[in-house]
């Protein structure tokens, strides 16, 4: 999975323990009212093997940020207004062939070597020797190779994210056809390297490239047995993937249509599909919002267990703070297209620094509030059409100072791990600079 060609030279790099790094990401939308700054300078890191929670209220840009990883934001109306998403894919650990050893921390995988220097360390990789890709700049073909294989996504509503017209089997099979056709041929006992017409047809079948008449040919005797072996091999892979998510009787379930399954089952299918190729990064966009609490608890357990076993990094998006606290290692709080605060989960809940985070936590109903006394945040989220250079939270903020309406507070580290974008924690820059914002210099 490592083509020996160099993709775009990375313009920003990430620290070694980081698998993905969003740097000053800006995604805007053209609308009748003007340009909506839906995501406007978002910066955060996802560390290797961690679960990072991205929380915020409706419309603050969580999904747009998540979709940007896979370039799934529709353009137009979307506009890639800047920034980059650096990603370090992993490859199979050479010492243990994926079995797990000390060198790879029992994960069986190590960072892929930089194609420019073969791991020696060069300018491209800032001396780290690891391959770093800018997801917003790689070629379409490379992006497709990453999707579903190295980076996978779970959507909010499993009822909508599964195609109603295809069986579960047909949908999960696609992942294997796209990314594991060599393994399928192997398992089916087809010699993938020969160049006979039969093999070519089967090879195309295993990569889901057959078209029109080929299907008819594949159904005829000389090829039929090969095709059936491929089907059997894929079925086995699908059954294994479904079994991982504790679905009973996977061989039966996989022939069902999505509407024949319960919500929880559907989300398990989505998870099985997302984890089928053992991705390095899993993006979960509110995976339990559409589910019941008891089902939600099971799904969360499942995600957590699979994540810990496979050491997959997870970007977990939610608007439910208590849930994020339960499953995330670190949290980034988003407000109106910006990151307001990032920190470890523990700290953010014990010692929230940003007035918005504090407001959110206080607004959660609990036994300790007397009725009618919930601390609602007054006002509404600002329109994101051509926002002025001020703190996005000014106007609703209880701690607002005169400074807040004139300058835009940058996200700055206030103590180890904890970064806040608010003037009560750091001074505004000297002078009346135009828009003291994130240092936008990439791309």
């Amino acid at each position: 999975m490592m083509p020996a060609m160099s993709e775009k030279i990375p313009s920003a790099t990430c620290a070694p323990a980081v698998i993905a790094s969003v740097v000053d990401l800006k995604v805007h939308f053209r609308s009748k009212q003007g340009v909506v700054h839906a995501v406007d300078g978002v910066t955060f890191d996802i560390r290797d093997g961690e679960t990072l929670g991205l929380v915020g209220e409706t419309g603050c840009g969580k999904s747009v940020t998540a979709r940007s990883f896979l370039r799934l934001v529709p353009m137009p109306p979307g506009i890639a207004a800047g920034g980059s998403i650096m990603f370090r894919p992993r490859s199979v650990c050479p010492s243990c062939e994926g079995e797990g050893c000390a060198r790879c921390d029992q994960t069986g995988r190590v960072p892929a070597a930089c194609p420019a220097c073969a791991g020696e360390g060069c300018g491209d990789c800032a001396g780290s020797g690891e391959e770093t890709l800018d997801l917003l700049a790689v070629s379409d073909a490379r992006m497709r190779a990453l999707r579903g294989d190295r980076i996978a996504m779970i959507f909010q509503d499993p009822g909508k994210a599964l195609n109603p017209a295809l069986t579960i089997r047909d949908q999960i099979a696609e992942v294997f056809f796209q990314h594991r056709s060599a393994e399928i041929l192997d398992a089916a006992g087809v010699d993938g390297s020969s160049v006979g017409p039969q093999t070519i047809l089967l090879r195309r079948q295993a990569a889901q490239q057959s078209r029109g008449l080929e299907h008819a040919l594949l159904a005829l005797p000389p090829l039929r047995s090969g095709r059936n072996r491929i089907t059997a091999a894929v079925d086995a892979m699908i059954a294994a993937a479904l079994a991982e998510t504790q679905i009973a009787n996977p061989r039966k379930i996989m022939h069902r249509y999505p509407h024949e399954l319960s919500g929880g089952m559907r989300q398990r299918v989505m998870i099985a599909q997302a984890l089928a190729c053992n991705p390095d990064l899993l993006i979960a966009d509110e995976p339990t919002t559409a589910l019941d609490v008891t089902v939600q608890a099971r799904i969360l357990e499942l995600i957590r267990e699979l994540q810990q076993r496979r050491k997959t990094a997870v970007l977990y998006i939610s608007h439910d703070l208590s849930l994020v606290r339960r499953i995330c290692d670190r949290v980034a709080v988003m407000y109106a297209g910006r990151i307001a605060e990032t920190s470890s989960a523990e700290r953010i809940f014990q010692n929230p620094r940003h007035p918005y985070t504090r407001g959110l936590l206080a607004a959660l109903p609990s036994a300790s509030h007397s009725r009618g006394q919930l601390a609602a945040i007054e006002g509404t989220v600002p329109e994101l059409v051509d926002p002025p250079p001020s703190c996005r939270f000014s106007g609703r903020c209880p701690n607002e100072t005169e400074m807040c309406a004139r300058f835009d507070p940058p996200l700055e580290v206030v103590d180890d791990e904890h970064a806040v974008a608010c003037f009560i924690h750091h001074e505004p820059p000297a002078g009346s600079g135009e828009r003291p914002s994130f240092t936008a210099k990439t791309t």
Partner: protein
Amino acid sequence: MTAATGPRQAGQTAASVKLVLSLRGLKKHFPIREGALQRVVGQVRAVDGVSFDIRSGETVGLVGESGCGKTTLGRCVSGLSDPTGGAAYFNISQTDRDGLDALLNIPEAHHSEQDREALAALEAAHRVDQLTGPAWRRYRRNCQVVFQDAFASLNPRHLVKDIVARPLRVYGEATGLELTERTVELLEQVGLGRQHLFRYPHQFSGGQRQRISIARALALDPELIVLDEPTSSLDVSVQAQILNLLHKLQQQRGLAYLFITHNLSVVRHVADRIVVMYLGKVVEAGDTATIFERPQHPYTKALLAASPDLSQDHDVEMPTLEGSVPDPAHPPQGCRFHTRCPVATQACGWEVDDVVRWLEYREGLFDALSAVRRDSPFEAALVFDDEASAKALAAALRSDMVPAPMRAAMDEPALHGREVQLRFREVSEVGLAERGAGHVAACVLNPAGE
């Protein structure tokens, strides 16, 4: 069957406490039709015998998982759909309610002439489906609903002015200038104002739309509002605004709320009493504090454990429920929760379906199962394709592979060639039993309370 009658604030005598609504054995079944002739082949028991009271001025929280019948119950309560069994009694005093319960507890065959008359009088005065004329109108205007999806329940082509004023116009409460003034008044009560009169629903945010729905529900000055997940589609900060608003209105107008939700932290915050539903039945009901501090039913406990809460220690493993909610068209015997209950006993209603469900997890065996010949829910013969499978099942049923309480509840499985004959002890439905003052639960464990 006096469900959850908790002590009311001091100073109120039984007679003076008014019950806005009393539900007694309320049922709503939906027919399932099949075949070319569309014959009714079964019933979805969406609500299956629910009893509880709503006192004036209180908030009753109704919680439960998706599909357990909360919305259906709310629609029956507010008169939007007619129950298929049982009844709701409107505006009944506590003494009358006690009298009614006493009469309902006597089997109909044993009613004396006097009983019959008394019952007929009570029903004519209070039973919702027997109300007529002005009494019916009074009931309809006194029970209003606010739905979860404010956008879907507001006509997108009507102005806010028309939406909020509609109930007033329909009931002939006001016209012309007075109508507009009353509408503005209502909007102001929910934190909107005159400037919003001439706008369409899509020009508002989610929270504002929910405010419009509330204003519309308030128009006729009702005593009871059914709130069907009023904040589920809202953000926490907006939710807080709406919850504060609802509380303010309750204080000002002495409203009673039936607050339907699946969010336990919300219900804990808003409700005086809580009713927990599972698969069309009430499994537990009691004061909010009691339910949260001393839950008695295993389902309530599981629900509480599964709901994330900030105050909770987040490192604790979440105890989770196995399986999914069974089909309400074929509710399990005995206790409906026994298919998922972590502490089920042999007396909980184990039945043939449990064996079939268990078999679904054994691929080989399940594929070999060719027929189930049922004599009753508790007795059946499982027919397999081959003798070996039948033998394997019989052996498994005697081993640790199946839950111990299930084994204990059944007779020794009899093996006849390719058939396995099963027989479970018959168990009747587990009813609600008193667990303390105003606290009831439907579970065979600890029936006497702790």
